[in-house]
């Protein structure tokens, strides 16, 4: 069997005595490269295109009081290969720390078989913004198989455990799950000062969790509409309901 890549990359952000964030670890590994810019750390290169057989892992650590934003240079394309592909992101955020994880969307191309896993541990007082956007196939093609699992704990208690399984079209295409949406996404916000009332609009739910967090989920006919819906919902979830726009 052909072996894929198994890169292990890592980013650590720590606050110094003056409260400024320093990137104390920035580890690229083969095709999974991380590049620091002034505003964010970018995921670049082959990391953006998991091929069947690849098994990539990214470890993020945000120390107490530190800030880290993760972005990516381009859409990730999950492609077929000789074996399922995997990506695993593990993150820890200390008290007063903030992680903003918002890479470009993933496209589940025809024939792919991808497992995306994210495990986030938030200390009490940590905050998080975590964006996940999935496009079901390239233009006019059916998606391959794609499973995502997102586990978040806050102060040791489960805040959110959320899976989206694109395996059987009779399930994900059901009117109970995604119906005929071609794009699905979520934003998890965790931390203080978030909306405490739910909100809905076309293809969009803002769902306050039991713990200190709000989950936004959206479905849409395409990636542009998905992004608009998520952005509108985020405005609301941050407690600014009067600013919600009307193009959803």
């Amino acid at each position, binding site marked *: 069997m052909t072996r894929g890549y198994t890169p292990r990359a890592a980013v650590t952000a720590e606050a110094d005595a003056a409260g400024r964030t320093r990137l104390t670890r920035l580890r690229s590994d083969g095709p999974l490269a991380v590049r620091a810019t002034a505003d964010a750390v970018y995921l670049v290169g082959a990391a953006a295109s998991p091929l069947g057989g690849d098994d990539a892992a990214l470890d993020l650590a945000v120390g107490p009081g530190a800030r880290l934003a993760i972005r990516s240079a381009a859409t990730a394309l999950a492609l077929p290969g000789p074996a399922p592909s995997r990506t695993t992101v593990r993150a820890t955020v200390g008290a007063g720390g903030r992680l903003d994880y918002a890479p470009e969307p993933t496209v589940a191309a025809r024939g792919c078989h991808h497992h995306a896993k994210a495990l986030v541990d938030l200390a009490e007082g940590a905050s998080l913004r975590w964006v996940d956007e999935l496009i079901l196939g390239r233009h006019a093609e059916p998606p391959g198989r794609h499973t995502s*699992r997102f586990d978040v704990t806050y102060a040791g208690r489960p805040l959110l455990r959320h899976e989206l399984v694109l395996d059987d079209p009779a399930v994900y295409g059901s*009117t*109970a799950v995604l119906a005929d949406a071609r794009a*699905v996404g979520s934003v998890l916000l965790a931390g203080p000062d978030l909306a405490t009332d739910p909100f809905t609009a076309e293809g969009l739910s803002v769902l*306050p969790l039991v713990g200190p967090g709000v989950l936004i989920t*959206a479905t849409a006919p395409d990636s542009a509409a998905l992004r608009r819906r998520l952005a509108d919902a985020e405005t609301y979830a941050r407690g600014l309901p009067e600013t919600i726009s009307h193009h959803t």
Partner: protein
Amino acid sequence: MAGTDAALLLLADSRLPAGGHAHSGGVEPAVAAGAVTDVADLTVFLRGRLATAGLVAAALAAAACAHAAGPADAFDALDAEADARTPSPAQRRAARAQGRSLLRAARATWAHPALDALAGTAPHHPVALGAATAAAGGGPGDAASIAAFTGVTGGASAAVRLLGLDPLAVNRAVAGLAADIDAVAARAADAARGPWAELPAASAPVLDLYAELHAGADLRLFES
């Protein structure tokens, strides 16, 4: 296979006085949205619900049943796992209302330390169902089957009432899902042997949206 205990059949019976008839499992808002208009639509909807919310409920029920067989201690950690898998506040309220009703019916019927441990709480419905299944002499596989089965039949009977569908045709559609129900229950029972943190968490974004829309609807026949 030996026959199923009558006590367990009681838990799967729609006449169980546990308030299940007041909930449509998202079928009422789906009907209101025009997504379910006939038996074929209903089948599509129920298949998706079974593989997502149904699987999660069955796994939680199996885990609760296994937990109930041990020393009777708190179910809080499992209930928190249910919360983490239920992002919709409307669905959490519906799950707790149904859990409270089921717990009341179970405590009036059977004596069991697990039911005592839950007394005075409003647990998520699958947690109450798992404890009730243990009290009725069943195991995790039974709890998963009952959760998966009643999730489908509850939605199906709600659709009959809402749309005036032919009950015979709906029954045939439910029978057509029997193998799926069994497969979901088997997966759920298997998952319940592992750590609670790793239990299935399959989401259904449209179901969540419907649950919230329904909670805000003026006119409705079902609580959820």
